[in-house]
């Protein structure tokens, strides 16, 4: 039930974003969201854990800026690599350990890694993220983790666990 309500809210908010605020739309959106969240709960094993506002706020306020910063850095890196005539690269597939247990936490981590400089998530296991790294730096997994995802790991761990 809790799960349903949270998914309902998320859906309804999305609906409102789509339609704007208008009494008819709100009503229709309410009905649609209710029905859809009900159907979804039947259709898939929908593990929803955005159930506390503070977490969301923390996510938005703390994580997003860090992420954006990393994203911009990543793109400058990309721009440099793409435009520079000689590309210093040392690619490899490496394992990054993670302690995040939540599915959504790990997904966010994986996506974040993909969008940050030189790395791209290929797969995720219970305790690790496997990435493709353009320029592998470090000698062991702990090094890798420090270089790639330490900042995310910390914040996301705080939010999702």
């Amino acid at each position: 039930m809790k799960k349903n309500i949270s998914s309902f809210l998320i859906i309804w908010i999305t609906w409102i974003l789509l339609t704007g605020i208008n009494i008819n739309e709100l009503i229709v959106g309410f009905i649609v969201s209710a029905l859809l969240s009900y159907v979804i709960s039947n259709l898939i094993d929908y593990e929803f854990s955005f159930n506390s506002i503070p977490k969301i706020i923390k996510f938005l306020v703390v994580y997003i800026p860090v992420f954006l910063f990393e994203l911009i850095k990543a793109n400058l890196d990309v721009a440099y690599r793409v435009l520079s005539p000689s590309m210093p690269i040392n690619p490899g597939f490496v394992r990054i350990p993670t302690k995040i247990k939540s599915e959504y936490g790990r997904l966010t981590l994986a996506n974040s890694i993909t969008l940050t400089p030189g790395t791209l998530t290929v797969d995720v296991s219970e305790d690790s993220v496997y990435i493709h790294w353009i320029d592998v730096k470090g000698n062991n997994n702990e090094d890798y983790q420090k270089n790639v995802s330490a900042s995310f790991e910390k914040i996301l761990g705080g939010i999702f666990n």
Partner: protein
Amino acid sequence: MKRIAVIILLGVLGFFIFSGIYSNEAFTEFGNVDLNNRVSNKFITKSVTDENDIVEFGKSSNLETGSANYVTSIVVNYRSFDTLGEVTVLFISSLGVALLLGTLGGKLTHKYRANFILRVGAKTIFPLIALTGIYIFIHGHLTPGGGFPGGSMIASAVLLLYLADENFRAKMSSFKLAESFAGSLYVLIGIFGLLTSGYFLNNFMNTGVIGDLFSAGIIPIVYVLVGLKVGSELTGIITDFLKVEVDE
């Protein structure tokens, strides 16, 4: 050699098709169409049964069809019978696919299990896609869209789930029920129009101010039904295609 002969043949054919079409003065050059020579003229001013000089968004009300989207007004009002047929085409196609492939009982096993990212990502994104689908068919009279794209969105959301999780099975019985319900209701709405006004599929509801959500009479209702129906049917098709042969 064969290819060259075919190309020459088609070249000649194409040449004659061009000449045959463009030798008609009435077939105006691309873009030079005068809508006054076409039936669409009256669709624009919405004056097939009423007389309107001008239709204004957000002002005109109680028009013969309240859809701000002209295409939708044609699809669900002026030529709604075509749309019923179109729904039927999809219905019968999915039925045909089911008859052909439905006997296959096996479950598709992915060669590689979907990775974590896809599994969780699909679940996360699914509601958004489904909602967008619903949004599209509910707003078919206001935005470019309608029952068909909306339904396809829903079906593609289901497809995503299939791709992400080999253990996922759409509950086809529910989809079938939805399909049957939506289709029947569509026809019944048409028959209701016939009973009340003498015209099958008559838009028997009031149309509000053009541009409002509730402004197009039965259009949104029909589009919801179409969307549900199309979604169910495409889901059915996808489900059938993802079955595999069982060795006998």
